[in-house]
């Protein structure tokens, strides 16, 4: 299986919103679409999935144009929603059946995902209803009826759920059809750390199953954790594209995390490196490369300063992103690749 996006182009009036976006996914994995707000990520996704008319370009899945029939897509949209006044279970079954999933299969998948995402109490409120004390002579009847002595609970409506729980339900909808291609637009935004971890675990499981994932996110740490390839968009144009490891390698090891027993600032500055942050003899240092890093280490050793931590790393995706789309968004020293 493969996904090929070639020369996507879209304009509104005279304004170009996506300018010649191309990329390929030859094998399962995670592809990240990154960019500032308004860079054209969501528009690109919408065009890829056929929700928005393209002014140019093609999207193919296994050599055929990507449509509802040629590819089983699971999509978590950036703008999330559920019918606020409708029952949650009704909605989930509806979304699954729209994707061609038989009702009984949908029910099984809902049950398994609900357990995985810890939302069972909202989808099966009767299981979690407080037990009521049987009245005199009621015991036989209680045994007879399968519902036991639990209070009959009304199905939960979407509007009764917190934002985080609604988001977990929406995430479920994207996976109900057991899709081959999963598109997640900002999957973790607005979630607390516990729920973030839950969703991350499910994403990991999907990757392990050999799914194709396209992820758009502002949370660079998350993208970095999952993705193998990236495209960074800035004002509709592709500014950086390729394998994440290769990109990082091209920048070299320029981040030094240094911790010493005593003050090492004069020696680091003497080596020509710049200190980005400092806290109790612990430093984040920007070096020009591995050579300069080794020079600092040599100077520290020669001066008899005990080094606790010396960690020379490639730049993070966050730093690469900021350096590529402009420092005006965040004040981090730019890199020279």
């Amino acid at each position, binding site marked *: 299986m493969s996904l090929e996006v070639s020369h996507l182009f879209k304009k509104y*009036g005279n304004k170009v919103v996506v300018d010649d976006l191309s990329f390929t996914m030859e094998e399962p994995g995670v592809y990240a679409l990154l960019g500032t707000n308004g860079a054209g990520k969501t528009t690109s996704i919408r065009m890829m*999935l056929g*929700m928005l008319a393209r002014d140019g370009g093609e999207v193919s899945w296994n050599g055929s144009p990507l449509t509802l029939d040629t590819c089983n*897509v699971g999509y978590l949209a950036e703008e999330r929603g559920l*019918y606020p006044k409708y*029952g949650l279970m*009704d909605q989930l079954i509806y*979304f699954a059946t*729209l994707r061609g999933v038989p009702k009984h299969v949908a029910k099984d998948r809902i049950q398994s995902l609900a357990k995985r995402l810890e939302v069972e109490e909202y989808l099966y409120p009767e299981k979690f209803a407080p037990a009521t004390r049987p009245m005199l002579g009621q015991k036989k009847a209680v045994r007879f009826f399968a519902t036991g002595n639990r209070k009959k609970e009304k199905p939960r409506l979407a509007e009764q759920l917190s934002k985080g729980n609604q988001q977990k339900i929406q995430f479920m909808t994207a996976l109900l059809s057991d899709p081959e291609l999963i598109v997640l637009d900002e999957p973790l935004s607005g979630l607390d750390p516990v729920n973030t971890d839950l969703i991350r675990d499910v994403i990991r499981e999907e990757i392990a199953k050999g799914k194709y994932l396209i992820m758009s996110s502002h949370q660079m740490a998350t993208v970095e954790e999952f993705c193998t390839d990236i495209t960074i968009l800035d004002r509709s144009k592709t500014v950086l594209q390729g394998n994440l490891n290769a990109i990082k390698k091209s920048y070299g090891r320029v981040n030094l995390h240094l911790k010493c027993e005593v003050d090492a600032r004069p020696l680091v500055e003497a080596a020509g490196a710049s200190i980005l942050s400092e806290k109790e003899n612990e430093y984040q240092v920007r070096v020009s490369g591995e050579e300069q890093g080794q020079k600092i280490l040599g100077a520290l050793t020669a001066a008899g300063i005990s080094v606790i931590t010396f960690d020379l790393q490639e730049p993070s995706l966050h730093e690469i992103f900021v350096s590529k789309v402009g420092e005006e968004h965040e004040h981090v020293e730019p890199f020279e690749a």
Partner: protein
Amino acid sequence: MLNRLKLKGLGHVFRFTLLQLLKKKGNIIGLVVFFLIIVVMGPGMALLTGNMMNGDGASVEHQSYLERREEALQRRQERLLEAGLSEEQLALLSQDLYAVGSNWEEYKTGVPEAEKITSPDEVTDDDFDTDDFSQNLGSSMLMMMLCILSVSFVVRSVVEEKTSKLVDLLMVSIEPLALLMGKILATLVYTLFYFLVQLLGFFVSDLIMKHLMNLEEGLGEFITIRLADTSPLGILIFLITCILGLLAFALLSGLSAAGCSSIEETSSAMSTAMLLCFAGYYFSMFVFAFNSKALVIVCSLLPFISMFIMPNAVLVYDFGYWLIPLSWGVQILFVAVAALLSAKVYQALIVHKGKRIGLPQILRMAFGKEVA
């Protein structure tokens, strides 16, 4: 043409939408209140106009509509005689004044009321027009009511979905035309269900008036007579025309609603459909009065207007059954073209956010012109 793929999933949308319309608490309450209002309307009106019961349940002051009118006409005649009119002049006047198939002299003979209403022998040529007009008016009112209900359900349903931010999710699961048509058909069925509940209300009201209040005239009875007078073929003609008309209205209002971005814009989205609905209703009241066959035929073919005119032209004013296939053909063609055009623009409209896209702009989009 509409291929099967474009409508794949329509059944799921239809079932889900209909089920949610039936399950929605607000709709259930609305329906029950509507039903109760109809049920108590007849007995309530009877009580307010002085038709009371005694302890045995028998009517003590049952003054029918005809009796009250007779009294009023008697007083009027006395005033006219005092003013100097001759008996002959009064007799001439009475021919036009006394509706429902009798003149002044016949009233005075005390013919039973039921016979006065239903006996075909007593229906004169002059009075026949009045009867036709009332039947025309009644059916047009019914059409208008169904139209208003249908339009409001469709608009509410589409805007609700759009503001629920579900569009992106739905668009990767189903073709836009199937989504729109599923919604429209579900709201259409729900509208007809509403109508049936209303009819049931009339019958219950009638039962209460007849058996609990010993009153003979009720709204339900009026409808029963009307339905009994109309042949099964007539009902079928009425129903099919109604469905075709409602489909056209629903497509128009569905598209209009898809151009909205907030609940506040709902009333604007309904305005065009409502305007056409009222136009159809008023046309139906006056078009037959012009005595122009050509005008009636044109109106019977016009989309949106046809549903108010054509059934009455055929069933009441004897324009001939040839008008039915002609009118239905035009309506089916119109609905098919409207559905195809809707399929072209519905997706773009439903993902649109921001300023409301009006119908003129939607039409421009449908015909492939760029909209700013």
